[in-house]
Each structure stands twice: as C-alpha cells, then as structure tokens.
C-alpha cells in the first residue's frame, strides 16, 4: 500500500534468480570451454552451500523451541513443526555432503562467482537473506532468549499459516537449487585435465549430486506437511505482503492531494498510530507522556475519526448504489452505522475525561498527535474543502459522491483507507484501556474535588480518582474498542467484496489470532509483552469486582459488607462462565461478559480455558483480543 518492499518482493526475486541460474547450468553446452564448465560447477557448489546456510537459518528460526523436544516426542509436534525438524535434518545432511571440510573447499564465501549461473545463485542468496532480515525487524529476543514482538506483524509471522507459507517458499528454493545441483553434477571433467584433477572433480560432482538429493528432502517434508495441514494461497499472500518494520514518515496533508493521496496518507497515519500506541503501553506506569491531556485528546480525535469515516462510508454507499453494486452499498451503509456507534462510544470515553486527570500535564503524546493527524486526513476525505480543518466552521459540505469515487475502481482504495483508520481505533482503544489501567494502579489518576462525593473531605482542589470512576472509564474504552472492532469487521467484509488492499489487514488479524491460540510452531516460547506489563496486568486482575467497587465508592468500609459484595461479584462471574460452558459457545468471550477483572475471574478463566495462554488471562481487554494487537 505504501510502496515499501515486501517479503514477497524478495522471495520472488530470489526464486527468479535461482531459476535463471539453473537455466544457465548446461552440462552439455559445447560453447563452454572445459575450464569454464569446471568454474561453473564450482560456483554452483559454492552457491548451493550458501543457499543451504540461509535456508538453515530460516529453519532454525522456526525450530527454536522444538529443539527442546526430544526426538522420541516429535509425534506431538504439529505437521509444520515436524516438517521443520525434518528439513533441518536434511539441510544438515546436504551441508555435510557438500562441504565435508566445513566449507574451506569453497574459499571465501564473499568472493563473487565467475560464471553466470554462479552469479544467479549469488543474487538469489542476497534476496533470501534480505527476506529473513525483513522478517527479523518484527521480532527480537530479550536477555533470557525470550522472543519479543516488535510490531503488530510479529504474531502474524510466527503464526502457523504464515510459518507454513514461509516453509513452502524455502522448499521451493531448495527444490530449484537441487535441480541446479543435479544438472551441474552431470558436467564431465575436461579432457585436458590431469587424471588426479579429474578424480577430484568427479568426487566433487558425486558429492554435489548427493547433496542435491538431500536438499530435495526439504521439499518432500514441506509438501507432506502441506497435505496434512494445508496452507492457502491467501496465507502465502499474507507472507508476501509483510513489509519491514519501519514506521511510515510523518506527514500532513497540504491541500492539493488527490483522493488516492488522501487514502495513502490515511493508511500511513493509521499505521503510525497503531505502532506508536503499541510501544507506549509498557511505560504507562511512569511515563511523563501519559497525561490526561493526551488521553482525552486521543479519545476526542478518535471520535472525530469515527465521525469522518461514517461520512465517507455513507458517501461510498450512495456511490456504490449509483454504480449498481447493491450488496456493496448495503455493506457500506452497515459499516457507516457501525462507525456512528463507535463515534458515540468514543465520545463517551472522551467525556469521561472531563472528570479525570493525571499528575502529569501539559504534554501531548505522540499517540494523541497521530490520532489528531488521522482525524485531519479522514476529514479531508470526508469534506469537500481541500483545506478542511476542525477550525473551518460548521458549514462544511461533505465531499460529492463523484469526487470520492469517480469510477468503481476507485472505491476499493477509499474502503481500504477507512478500514485502516477504524482498525487503528481498535488498537488505540486497547492501548488506552491498558494505559488507564496501569495509571490507576500507579495512583496517577486524579479528579477535581468538585466532582467527588460530598462525603470525601479533601483539603485540595483535587483528589485520587475513586476506583468506581476508573472502572467506568475502563468500561467506556472497552465499549469504544468493541464498537470500533465491529466497524472494522463490517468493513472487512466490504473490503473482501471489493478486493480492497486492506484485505491483508483482515488476514493478518486472523493469523495473529491463530498464533495467540497457541497454534504457533514456536508459540511455547513467545511472550509478546515486556515483563513489566505482564506484572502490571496481573496486578490489574487484583482490582475489586463491580459491586465491591461501587460500595467502596459509596464510602462503605465495613469488611463484612465488602466481603459480601466480593462474593456477589464472584457468583456473578461464575454464573457467566458456567452459562458460557453450558451454551458450549466456543467462541464466547468469557471475560467480555464479566463486569470487571478480579482474581476470581482470572482463576475461573484459567479453569474454563485450560489451554488459554497467560496473555489471554492477563490482558485487560479480552473482548478486543480478536482485533487488537497489544
């Protein structure tokens, strides 16, 4: 969408260069001198060795955790995990056959190849390496070797579908390389060679042939997994769509952008907002950037974004109807209605901040700034005035239908922009919910004394925000997130129907959900969140329940009464979870129905979902997990 290179670009280039190298490997070419044929064979052996090294690194990334599984326990692994183990074994065998002396026979691996075929291998290896480097920009490891997610794409990369797609990719590389190796192995030693040289060449050729056959086992293992747990072309497309973890440059509209430019700006700004929202959460306990100013401005801007998206979607709905796409039109109007509900929910969250503040003030966080920018970009899409701003006054006409999507082919781009913007709001709601939770735990939330109960005697203009009010704010963010998620879901369906570029977003979220469900090949060692957030989230679960909080706010301090309230909270949570079980609603989101997080909820959720990961239990917005990447 933003014109940045993707993994697919690198993978395709690698495959093309490998295929070209193999096509140039001609064992019977009469035009090639004897010495040239030998040089070519040596280049191919060296190229194959390097291909094996790079693929081995890819495989090692996947088998990082399965290395701890004993060989006699491999039956418990998923088909793709087993394929990775088998591929690693085949690659080791091929490597040993090709370079029995550990690679010294090839001299410096950095030396450029002399033959055209060898140069093809060199180029392919560069692209293969670049592809792995690209994927690694999304992941890192902490001091304990625990993998840490560095972007919203990280859980997508480690998901089963994308892992499988990646293995299909390097199985293809292995297969092409092996084909080249087998062809090169047929090259006869030149007649002018001394006998000793000819014998050495023949031995090398036989080793090349054996290594090529070993390399083909990678392809066999991967295709066996593909039969057992198929990876779809959409999954491959998702892998190919992954870009380097680089935030798009900050920019603002200047006033003469086309609709396509505005869509691009909206998409990039949404991406920036998502990225920044993700990274600020762990700092909420202490960061001076966490201010009431920032949180309320973010909520206000999110209200504006939802409002603008609803306007854009209604215009598109009318335009689609004009263009004869009744189903698409209906989907757009449904999305617009959902965006209006999200707008109302965000407005409630923003209004909650009229009675709340933080001890830090006067700073606008990057998240608030990006959300304001998103409001500006979406506003420029929604309104006719090319220089529209919030300060432009109340009589701003909406953009004419024919201006927003002159032809049916213009519609997908605008749908994608709205989809990206609404998805960003889901992430923002999740991030701000977590930030408020952490700030409350750290005692950073305050309220004007005027807004507190008359029973509270505070000799200051402000006092600590009561837990009941914190609870209401958290509920407001939860509802804003849920409403935004519903808008995003509605838009996903439209995006799918019109083949908007943002369908990748939907696929990425689905893959990330699969990853979170514990299906990841190396999911066992993945912990996407820094330890301090994990601990802080665990503390959040120690908050009193709904009724206990209300009584506390009313000034009740009698332990017996509070204990009864706690028991009521617990009974309510048990009832909700029990109902969920009885309904056998596998998709029912237990915590979504719970009035609040509490230790009891945590324990019950753990009991109800034995397979649930600790992220699922500890995350304070369970209802948003389906979409949010935090």
């Amino acid at each position, binding site marked *: 969408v933003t014109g940045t290179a993707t993994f697919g670009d690198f993978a395709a280039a690698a495959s093309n260069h490998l295929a070209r190298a193999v096509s140039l490997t001609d064992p019977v070419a009469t035009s090639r001198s004897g010495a040239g044929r030998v040089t070519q064979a040596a280049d191919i052996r060296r190229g194959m060795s390097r291909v094996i090294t790079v693929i081995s690194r890819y495989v090692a990334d996947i088998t990082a955790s399965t290395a701890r599984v004993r060989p006699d326990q491999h039956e418990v692994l998923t088909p793709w995990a087993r394929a990775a183990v088998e591929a690693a074994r085949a690659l080791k065998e091929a490597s040993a056959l090709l370079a029995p002396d550990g690679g010294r026979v090839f001299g410096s691996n950095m030396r450029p190849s002399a033959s055209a075929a060898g140069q093809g291998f060199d180029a392919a290896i560069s692209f293969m390496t670049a592809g792995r480097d690209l994927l690694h920009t999304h992941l890192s490891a902490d001091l304990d070797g625990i993998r840490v997610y560095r972007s919203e794409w990280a859980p997508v990369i480690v998901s089963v579908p994308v892992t499988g797609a990646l293995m299909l990719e390097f199985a293809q590389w292995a297969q092409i390389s092996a084909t080249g190796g087998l062809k090169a192995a047929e090259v006869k030693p030149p007649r002018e060679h001394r006998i000793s040289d000819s014998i050495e060449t023949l031995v090398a050729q036989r080793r090349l042939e054996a290594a090529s056959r070993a390399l083909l086992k990678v392809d066999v293992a991967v295709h066996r997994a593909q039969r057992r747990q198929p990876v779809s072309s959409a999954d491959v497309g998702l892998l190919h769509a992954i870009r380097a973890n680089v935030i798009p440059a900050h920019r603002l509209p200047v006033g003469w952008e086309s609709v396509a430019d505005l869509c691009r700006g909206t998409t990039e700004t949404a991406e920036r907002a998502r990225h920044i929202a993700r990274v600020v959460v762990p700092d909420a306990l202490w960061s001076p950037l966490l201010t009431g*100013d920032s949180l309320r401005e973010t909520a206000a801007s999110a209200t504006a974004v939802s409002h603008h998206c609803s306007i854009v979607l209604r215009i598109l709905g009318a335009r689609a109807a004009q263009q004869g796409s009744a189903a698409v039109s209906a989907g757009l109007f449904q999305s617009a209605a959902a965006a209006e509900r999200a707008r109302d929910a965000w407005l409630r969250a923003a*209004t909650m901040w009229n009675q709340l503040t933080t001890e830090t003030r006067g700073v606008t966080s990057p998240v608030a700034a990006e959300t304001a920018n998103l*409001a500006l970009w979406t506003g420029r899409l929604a309104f006719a005035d090319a220089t529209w*701003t919030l300060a432009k006054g109340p009589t701003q006409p909406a953009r004419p239908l024919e201006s927003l999507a002159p032809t049916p082919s213009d519609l997908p781009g605008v749908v994608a922009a709205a989809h990206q913007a609404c998805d960003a709001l889901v992430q923002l709601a999740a991030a701000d919910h977590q930030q408020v939770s952490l700030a409350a735990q750290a005692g950073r939330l305050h309220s004007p004394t005027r807004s507190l109960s008359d029973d509270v005697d505070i000799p200051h203009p402000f006092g600590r925000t009561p837990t009941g009010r914190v609870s209401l704010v958290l509920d407001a963010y939860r509802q804003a997130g849920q409403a935004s998620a519903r808008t995003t879901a509605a838009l996903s369906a439209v995006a799918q129907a019109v083949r908007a570029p943002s369908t990748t977003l939907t696929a990425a979220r689905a893959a990330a959900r699969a990853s979170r469900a514990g299906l990841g090949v190396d999911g066992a060692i993945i912990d996407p969140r820094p330890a301090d957030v994990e601990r802080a989230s665990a503390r959040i679960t120690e908050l009193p329940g709904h009724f206990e909080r209300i009584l506390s706010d009313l000034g009740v301090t009698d332990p017996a009464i509070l204990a009864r309230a706690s028991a009521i909270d617990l009974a309510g949570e048990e009832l909700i979870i029990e109902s969920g079980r009885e309904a056998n609603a596998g998709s029912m989101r237990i915590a979504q129905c719970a009035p609040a997080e509490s230790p009891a909820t945590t324990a019950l959720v753990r009991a109800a979902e034995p397979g649930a990961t600790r992220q699922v239990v500890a995350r304070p917005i369970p209802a948003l997990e389906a979409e949010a990447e935090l």
Partner: protein
Amino acid sequence: MDRVAAASVRLERADDLPAILEAAFDAFDDMLPVIEAQQDPAGGAFTTFVMSAAFAANGRDAVLFAPSLPPSASRGPIADRPGCGSALEAATALAGLGRLLDLRLTGAAAQAVSPGDRRACIDGARQARRLVSLMAGAAGQ
C-alpha cells in the same frame, strides 16, 4: 450562556493570582457543560465541539495543580447542563471567554513568582488559545 457570562465577569474582576487561578478554573469547568450540549453529530460543528471540550478540560487541569490555587477551589457544585442555545451562540460566547482566559492567564504568568504557578498559567493560556481557534471558526469569526 448565563454561566459563561458569569464566569467572564468573575474572571475580569479577579485581582490577584489566586483569584485569577480560581476564576480560570471555574471558567474552564463551566465551559464543559456548554460545549457538551453542542456535541450533536447531526450538527455541522460536532467534531469542533468535541475537540474543544478536550482543550477546555486541559486548561482546567493546567490550573488545577497550580500551587496558588486556593484549596477551596473546585469545591462548589458541578455546573448543571445548560439549556441548548444555538451552536453559533455557544461558539461565540465560548470564544469570548477563551480570549479572556488567554489574556488573564498570560498576564498572570508574567506576575507569577512560583514556577508551578507560571507553568500553570502558561499552559492554561495555551489551551485557551487552542479552544479559541476552534470556537472562532465555529462562530464564523
């Protein structure tokens, strides 16, 4: 709009830093229900009023932690939701009060001795200017 007018009078009459801070606090706080009453999605200035509420609350919070703000501030009753005047009337009144807030807080910042007070006045004035920029647009000024 009576509350906005009363807040303006009180702010004009405030003659020392604590009084200015208290009047500014009340003025920002009194703006909020007036702004909320205009947050109608069907209205042309919906998002303008939504953002304005954020700036008014920011301004109130800037003043809230000023060391010289009297402890008795913020102890009166919360302002009632006002009757709905037109968006134009509200924007005009709010823009006027915002300008006055900017003027008085900027002046108070120059007189303030304590860095905390100075910062509170400067931040409050900045938020007032942000609010004025939106309300002036909504008022067609």
